[in-house]
């Protein structure tokens, strides 16, 4: 029994090392990388208790890309804060690899709309911020900068870069600590339409190389359909999962394809449009 397990484990390692990343979407909480279970959250306001999250349940498999879309103000960011460990739910729990989450850690890095690249550090120092002492941090930082196409900007300061470039730095800074999960909270919403589109393609290219589990929160249905394996639609406040859609199409996807257009319309209908 033991030997069998060990054998399988070593096989998996070999597979993971030699082959290009395989995207396998597990279902159900048993195998989930991330399991969100029966989460509720209310805020105390002047007018009394304001229920924001009304019970949310879902799992994200290892290497899966799940997008959550919902109307603005429905509590998406609250949900993300809870999942990433910055906030506590009133009820329910978040399990990462089966272990209840207790505060944020570097195994799951948040990329948010506002951006959090430190403006007082050079690009390279930003990249090395999350890395601890041992190993050649500079080489590692440079490798990921090259991956996002920012080689040559190591010594630049963030205010010398454009919005799209800043997003790349933020993504690279997250990837360099090799997180299991990327939490993206409207990461591309502050970008102009063209840069947004370009960044999606970039993101997919990098994810194909690095194989991360991704949870994306967005209000942009096309963005979700462009990248995700699965789309969850949230209701308005107190928010619950109103519908789930599989997006079983290979990349690169054409948003104008009939299947995706139909999916888009169904999702928009769920959102009341």
């Amino acid at each position, binding site marked *: 029994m033991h030997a069998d397990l060990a054998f399988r484990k070593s096989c998996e390692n070999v597979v993971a090392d030699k082959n290009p990343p395989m995207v396998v979407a597990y279902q159900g909480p048993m195998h989930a990388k991330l399991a969100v279970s029966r989460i509720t959250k209310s805020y105390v306001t002047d007018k009394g208790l304001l229920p924001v999250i009304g019970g949310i349940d879902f799992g994200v498999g290892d290497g899966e890309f799940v997008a959550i879309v919902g109307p603005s103000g429905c509590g998406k960011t609250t949900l993300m804060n809870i999942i*990433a460990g*910055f906030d506590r739910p009133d009820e329910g729990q978040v399990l990462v690899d089966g272990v209840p989450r207790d505060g*944020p*850690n*570097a195994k*799951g*890095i*948040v990329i*948010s709309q*506002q*951006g*959090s690249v*430190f*403006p*007082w*550090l050079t690009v390279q120092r930003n990249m090395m*911020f*999350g890395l601890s002492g041992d190993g050649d941090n500079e080489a590692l930082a440079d490798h990921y900068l090259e991956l996002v196409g920012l080689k040559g900007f190591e010594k630049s*300061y*963030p*205010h010398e870069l454009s919005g799209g470039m800043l997003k790349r730095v933020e993504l690279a800074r997250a990837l360099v*600590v090799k997180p299991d999960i990327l939490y993206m909270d409207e990461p591309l919403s502050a970008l102009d339409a063209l840069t947004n589109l370009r960044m999606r393609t970039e993101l997919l290219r990098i994810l194909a190389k690095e194989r991360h589990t991704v949870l994306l929160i967005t209000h942009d249905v096309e963005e979700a359909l462009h990248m995700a394996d699965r789309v969850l639609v949230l209701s308005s406040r107190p928010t619950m999962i109103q519908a789930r859609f599989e997006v079983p199409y290979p990349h690169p996807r054409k948003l104008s394809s009939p299947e995706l257009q139909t999916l888009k319309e169904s999702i928009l209908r769920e959102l009341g449009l």
Partner: protein
Amino acid sequence: MDKLKKLLPPLAVVVLLVAVWWIVVVESESVIFPTPWQVATGTYELIEQGTLWGHIGASLFRVGTGFFLAISIGVPLGLLMGWVAGAFTTINPIVQILRPISPIAWIPLSILWFGVGDVSPIFLIFLSSVFPIVVQTTAGVHTIERQYLRAAENFGVKRLKLFLQVVIPAVLPQIIIGMRVSLGVAWLVVVAAEMIALRSGLGYLIIDSRNAGNRYDLVIAGMVIIGLTGLLLDGSMRRLERLKMVRWKYAR
């Protein structure tokens, strides 16, 4: 060439003011109020005697020392008050009570405690310049944008690293503004502080010129030198704002 173009309008204003001053003094036939020329010759006289540099040096020394003390106490205190909520609620009221008291009001106590040597003016300069830096630093910590603290927390960095690589650099632009204000105030009170000084300093020069023989040319010379030195000091502080690691705050 561009610099010259920028410099021309303010220079014209100065020339105009000096001209008006000169004309008014000549026309009113004042016997006591000096013309710009008399101020210039008075200044030259001080240079000839070799006392001018001594006065400037003495003032700079006192302001420098008081300012340095204010920074070395004010910055840590401001960081503490900004970072630790308990420290803020405990210390802020007393800061707010002491802050509006003019340094001039402290002169009697200062003489009582420190006598009339160098310590008294330094103490007064310290008192006047410590509060701006404390207030600005505290406000700086309070307004650190949350996403930066979150990112640091997300990467799981140690407290020391959080403080050295996130909190302090995030507040640094505000600290520099606080330092500029502080140094300005410190230089502003130099005359008041040196009213109790012994035989040196620009403040002493002004008071002494008035008391010993109504030398108003030297009074005005002292004033002009204080103004020009203040301009130079502020200019040197402004240079700090151009550092790349703080420019992000001012660029917007």
